[in-house]
C-alpha cells in the first residue's frame, strides 16, 4: 500500500528537528536528571570472579554504616529472575538471577544491593559487604565451553549450547563434492557493544496505597519492560507504569530487561521509598549486555568464473551465561543463518547455529544485530574467491549478485526479499567513486611503495519486519505491529502518542512529518509523545530499523482517517462535498472557493465545543488510534553498497581511512538530513567495530577493558567524512519508506578488512580474518603477509 500526498510539504523535507532545542539548552530530561523527595540510592556489589560458588555474603558491617537503609542479597530474592525461553525444540533455558544466589556466572554479576540515603555512602557501604567465593573453572572462550568434559554453566544442562540448529539444502553435499574449487576459512569478530554515552539509569517508586509501581528507566522498549517486570515480579501489568524519558543513546544495549531494573522495583516495593540507581561506566562496560562475538567457519564452493555453487557456514556465538529478555539466546545465530547468503545467488546452502553459554557477560542486541558478522563472513569469502580466481573483487560481486528481475526473492536462507536494488547501489557507487581510477591510483602508489587498499561491499538488509519474522525466531513475545494514537486538540494542535521510542533517531520529527501533510498542519503544531506506558499505546519499542516504517505508517494512516472526519464536518458546514475539502497551512477550505474557508483550529473547536454544528451521527471526538504491521510481516528490504579507501603504515600498524562512500536505497526518505545522520553515525560505530572496539577478557574471565581508556570508541579524529548518495525506490509500505537505522553499521567491518587486506598485498598474501584491526593486529597481519610473500 503506497499512499502519496499530491502535495507533500513536510514529508521528504530536511526539516529541523523538533527535539533539538531542549537538548541544546540542557533541558533534556534523562533518568539521572529526575528527582524525587526522599530518594534512596542503590549500589550493587559485583562479583570479581567469572565463575564461583558464593559461600557467604556478610552484610552486617555495611548495614551498620550510618545512612544505610538496607542490603539485599541473592537469598532475599531467590524466587525471582529473568527467563526467556525460545520455542525452538531442544532449547535449554536459564534463569538470570536478580542477585546471584549460590553461583556467580560472570565477572560483574551483582551479588548484593546496598541502599543508602546518599550515593557516596552507598558506594562506601558496598565495599563493606564481604562475600566469600570459591572460584570455579571459568569457561571464557567458545572453545573452552565446547571442550569435551567441560564443566556445565548450568548444572541441569546437557552441554553448554543453548540450542543447536542446522539447515542443509538437499543438494548441498553433492554440489560441494562436485565443485572445482572450494575455499574454507574461519572468521571472528571481537566482543563489543553499543556503549551509549548515557549509561543505564533507573528510578523506581512504589505507592502502597494504590499498590502501584512506577519505574523510570533508560530503555528502548518501555512496554516490553513493563511486561517483563510483571512476569518477573508476579504483578499485574495495570499496577506497573514504565517511563522512559529522554534516552542518551540506545543502539540495542537498552533493549533488554536488566536485573537492575527488577532489583530497583523490588527494593521500592520493599522499602516504600523511591530508589535510584545510576550506572557508572565501569559497571556499564562490565555488565550492560555485550554483543557481536561471532566465530564463523565458512566453506564456499565456486566455479572457474568465481560463481558461488554452494555455501556452508557454522555460526558460533559466545553468549555469556543467560538467555536475555525479550530476545532469547538465539537471535544472533538465527539471524546469521538467515542472512548469510546476502544479496547473492546461492544455489546450495548449509548453516548451523550454536549459541554457546560461557562465563562472559550476557549478550544482547547491538545495532545491526548479527548482520555485521554475517556480512563480514560472506564478503570476506567472496574476496578470497576473487583472489584465488585472479578477479577484481568488484567483478566477483557482479557475477553473483541478484539482479532486479530476481526480486521478490525467496532466499535460500529462508527470508523473503520483497525488493532490492543492491546491483543499482553498487553500480552507482562504482561510477561515483571512479572505481577504475582508484585502481589506477593504487598501482601508482604501490609503485612508490605505499600500501593503499580498496574495499567494496554491497548488502541487503531486512527492515520493518513484524510478526511473521519474529514468529519464526521462536521468541516468547512476538513483536510486530506498532500503534500511533493521534489526537487533535480543541485549538487545532496535534498530539501523536506512539508505542515506539526515540533515542537520537529524530522520530519526534519524522513521525510528525508522516502525519502533517494530510491535515495541512505545521510541524510546530505537532507534539510527539513516547516512552510512558500510561500514556502511549502498547507496542514493542524501537529496535531493528522498524520505527519510522511501522509507527510512522500508523501515524500516516491515522492522519488520513482524521482528515476524512474533518472533511465530512467541514463539508457539512460549508455545504460542499467532502472530496472538495482541502487542508493546507492550518486552513480548511473548499477547493476552488477560497471564500469558504476557516482555520483548522476553528474546525476542531466546533467538533469538540459546538457538537450541535457537526453532522448528525458524527461523534464529537478527534482521536484515532491506528495499528500498522506492514504486511506480510517479513520486512521490507533496504539495499546499500559501501566503499572504503585506506592507506596502511606497515611500520606502525596505523590505518588511515582516506575515503568512505555509501550509496543506499531506503525507499522514500521522510527526512534526508536525518537519514544521512543515521548513516554517518552507523558507519562511525562500524568503524569502531572494525578498528578499535574490543572487550578483552583474561584467561580467568576477568574483563580487562573497564574504562574508556581501554575500551576505545572512535573520536572525531578517527572517523572520516562519510560521503552519501541515495536511490529512492518506494517500498510497498505506507508512504513507501524502508527502515534504515542500522544499515550504516553493517558493512564497515567487511569493507575495512577487505581494504586492509588489499593494501597489504604488495607485502604478500594474508587473510584478514579477525576484527578489530588494532595497530598490533595490523602489524601481525603485515608480518604474516611478508612471510607468506617470501
Amino acid at each position: 500500500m503506497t499512499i502519496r500526498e499530491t502535495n507533500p510539504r513536510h514529508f521528504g523535507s530536511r526539516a529541523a528537528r523538533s527535539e533539538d532545542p531542549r537538548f541544546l539548552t540542557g533541558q533534556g530530561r534523562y533518568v539521572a536528571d529526575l528527582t524525587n523527595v526522599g530518594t534512596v540510592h542503590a549500589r550493587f556489589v559485583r562479583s570479581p570472579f567469572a565463575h564461583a560458588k558464593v559461600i557467604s555474603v556478610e552484610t552486617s558491617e555495611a548495614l551498620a554504616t550510618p545512612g544505610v537503609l538496607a542490603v539485599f542479597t541473592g537469598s532475599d530474592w531467590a524466587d525471582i529472575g529473568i527467563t526467556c525461553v525460545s520455542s525452538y525444540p531442544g532449547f535449554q533455558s536459564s534463569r538470570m538471577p536478580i542477585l546471584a544466589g549460590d553461583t556467580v556466572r560472570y565477572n560483574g554479576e551483582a551479588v548484593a544491593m546496598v541502599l543508602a540515603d546518599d550515593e557516596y555512602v552507598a558506594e562506601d557501604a558496598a565495599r563493606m559487604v564481604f562475600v566469600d567465593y570459591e572460584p570455579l573453572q571459568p569457561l571464557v572462550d567458545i572453545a573452552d565451553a565446547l571442550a569435551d568434559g567441560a564443566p556445565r554453566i548450568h548444572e541441569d544442562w546437557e552441554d553448554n549450547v543453548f540450542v543447536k540448529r542446522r539447515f542443509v539444502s538437499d543438494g548441498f553435499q553433492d554440489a560441494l563434492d562436485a565443485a572445482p574449487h572450494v575455499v574454507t576459512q574461519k572468521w571472528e569478530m571481537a566482543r563489543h557493544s553499543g556503549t551509549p554515552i548515557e549509561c543505564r539509569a533507573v528510578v523506581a517508586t512504589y505507592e502502597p496505597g494504590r499498590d502501584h509501581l512506577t519505574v523510570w528507566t533508560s530503555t528502548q522498549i518501555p512496554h516490553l519492560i513493563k511486561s517483563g517486570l510483571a512476569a518477573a515480579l508476579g504483578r499485574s501489568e495495570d499496577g506497573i507504569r514504565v517511563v522512559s524519558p529522554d534516552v542518551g543513546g540506545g543502539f540495542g544495549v537498552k533493549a533488554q530487561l536488566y536485573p537492575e531494573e527488577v532489583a530497583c522495583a523490588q527494593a521500592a516495593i520493599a522499602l516504600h521509598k523511591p530508589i535510584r540507581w545510576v550506572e557508572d561506566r565501569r559497571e556499564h562496560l562490565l555488565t550492560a549486555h555485550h554483543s557481536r562475538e561471532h566465530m564463523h567457519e565458512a566453506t564456499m564452493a565456486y566455479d572457474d568464473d568465481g560463481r558461488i555453487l554452494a555455501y556452508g557456514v557454522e555460526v558460533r556465538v559466545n553468549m555469556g551465561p543467560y538467555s536475555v529478555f525479550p530476545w532469547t539466546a538465539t537471535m544472533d545465530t538465527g539471524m546469521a543463518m538467515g542472512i548469510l547468503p546476502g544479496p547473492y545467488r546461492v544455489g546450495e546452502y548449509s548453516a548451523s547455529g550454536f549459541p554457546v553459554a560461557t562465563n562472559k557477560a550476557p549478550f544482547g542486541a547491538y545495532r545491526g544485530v548479527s548482520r555485521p558478522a554475517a556480512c563480514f563472513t560472506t564478503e570476506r569469502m567472496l574476496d578470497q574467491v576473487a583472489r584465488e580466481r585472479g578477479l577484481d573483487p568488484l567483478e566477483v560481486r557482479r557475477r553473483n549478485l541478484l539482479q532486479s528481475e530476481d526480486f521478490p526473492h525467496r532466499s535460500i536462507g529462508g527470508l523473503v526479499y520483497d525488493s532490492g536494488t543492491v546491483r543499482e547501489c553498487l553500480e552507482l557507487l562504482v561510477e561515483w567513486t571512479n572505481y577504475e581510477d582508484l585502481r589506477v591510483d593504487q598501482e601508482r602508489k604501490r609503485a612508490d611503495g605505499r600500501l593503499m587498499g580498496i574495499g567494496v561491499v554491497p548488502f541487503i538488509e531486512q527492515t520493518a519486519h513484524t510478526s511473521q519474522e519474529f514468529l519464526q525466531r521462536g521468541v516468547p513475545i512476538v513483536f510486530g505491529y506498532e500503534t500511533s494514537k493521534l489526537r487533535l486538540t480543541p485549538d487545532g494542535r496535534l498530539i501523536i502518542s506512539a508505542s515506539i521510542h526515540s533515542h537520537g533517531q529524530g522520530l519526534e520529527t519524522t513521525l510528525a512529518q508522516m502525519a502533517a501533510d494530510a491535515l495541512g498542519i505545521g510541524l510546530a503544531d505537532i507534539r510527539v509523545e513516547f516512552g510512558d506506558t500510561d500514556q502511549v499505546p502498547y507496542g514493542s519499542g524501537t529496535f531493528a530499523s522498524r520505527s519510522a516504517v511501522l509507527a510512522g505508517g500508523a501515524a500516516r494512516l491515522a492522519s488520513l482517517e482524521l482528515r476524512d472526519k474533518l472533511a465530512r464536518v467541514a463539508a457539512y458546514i460549508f455545504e460542499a462535498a467532502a472530496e472538495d475539502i482541502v487542508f493546507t497551512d492550518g486552513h480548511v477550505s473548499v477547493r476552488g472557493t477560497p471564500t469558504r474557508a476557516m482555520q483548522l483550529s476553528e474546525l476542531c473547536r466546533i467538533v469538540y465545543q459546538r457538537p450541535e454544528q457537526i453532522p448528525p451521527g458524527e461523534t464529537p471526538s478527534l482521536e484515532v488510534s491506528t495499528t500498522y504491521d506492514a504486511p506480510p510481516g517479513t520486512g521490507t528490504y533496504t539495499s546499500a553498497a559501501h566503499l572504503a579507501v585506506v592507506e596502511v603504515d606497515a611500520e606502525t600498524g596505523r590505518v588511515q581511512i582516506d575515503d568512505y562512500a555509501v550509496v543506499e536505497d531506503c525507499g522514500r526518505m521522510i527526512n534526508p538530513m536525518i537519514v544521512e545522520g543515521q548513516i554517518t553515525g552507523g558507519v562511525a560505530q562500524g568503524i569502531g567495530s572494525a578498528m578499535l572496539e574490543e572487550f578483552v577478557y583474561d584467561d580467568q574471565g576477568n574483563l580487562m577493558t573497564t574504562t574508556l581508556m581501554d575500551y576505545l570508541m572512535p573520536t572525531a579524529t578517527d572517523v572520516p567524512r562519510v560521503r552519501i548518495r541515495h536511490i529512492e525506490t518506494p517500498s510497498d509500505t505506507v508512504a513507501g519508506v524502508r527502515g534504515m537505522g542500522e544499515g550504516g553499521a553493517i558493512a564497515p567491518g567487511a569493507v575495512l578488512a577487505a581494504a586492509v587486506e588489499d593494501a597489504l598485498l604488495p607485502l604478500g598474501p594474508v587473510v584478514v580474518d579477525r576484527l578489530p584491526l588494532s595497530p598490533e593486529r595490523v602489524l601481525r597481519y603485515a608480518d604474516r603477509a611478508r612471510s607468506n610473500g617470501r
Partner: protein
Amino acid sequence: MVDVTLTINGTTVSRSTTPRRLLSDFIREDLGYTGTHVGCEHGYCGACTILVDGEPARACLMLAVQADGLQLETVESLAPSPDALHEIQQAFQDNHGLQCGFCTPGMLMTAKALLADNATPTEEEVREQIAGNLCRCTGYSQIVDAILSVGPVVRETP
C-alpha cells in the same frame, strides 16, 4: 562539611558540601543544573565539560571545593533568552550536529571555548579540539560542520 562559594552562569551561590563531592554531582544535584551530563566519571568522554574561568574543564575530575571562588559556565548559560538559541546552538540544530543529545552540552561548551581561542579554525583543528568529547550517535562530521559554520562575528566575540 566545607563552605563553597562560586559563580555559576552569572549567579553567585554558597553551599556547604562534603570535601569529596565531585563538582559534576555538585552542579547537577546540589545546584540543579542537570544540563551538564556525566558519561564516565573518569575524565574521558567529555560529556561533563563546562567552562571554569572561561577554560574548558571536566566537572567529573574536579571536586566542588576546588571550584571555590571560581566562575563556572554550563550549557544553561548559552541561550540568550528562553525562546532563542545561541549561534553555536543554532548551528548544531541547522547542521544536525546532535542526535540523542547526551554529549551535546559538553560539545557545545568545548565548541564555545575553541571558537573563543581560534575564530577561524580549520576542519582539522576542530576535529582535534573536539577529539576529547565522545559522541556515539553522529559520527562527528555534522558537529564539525556546525562548528565551522558559526559566523566569524560570533567566533570573535564569544
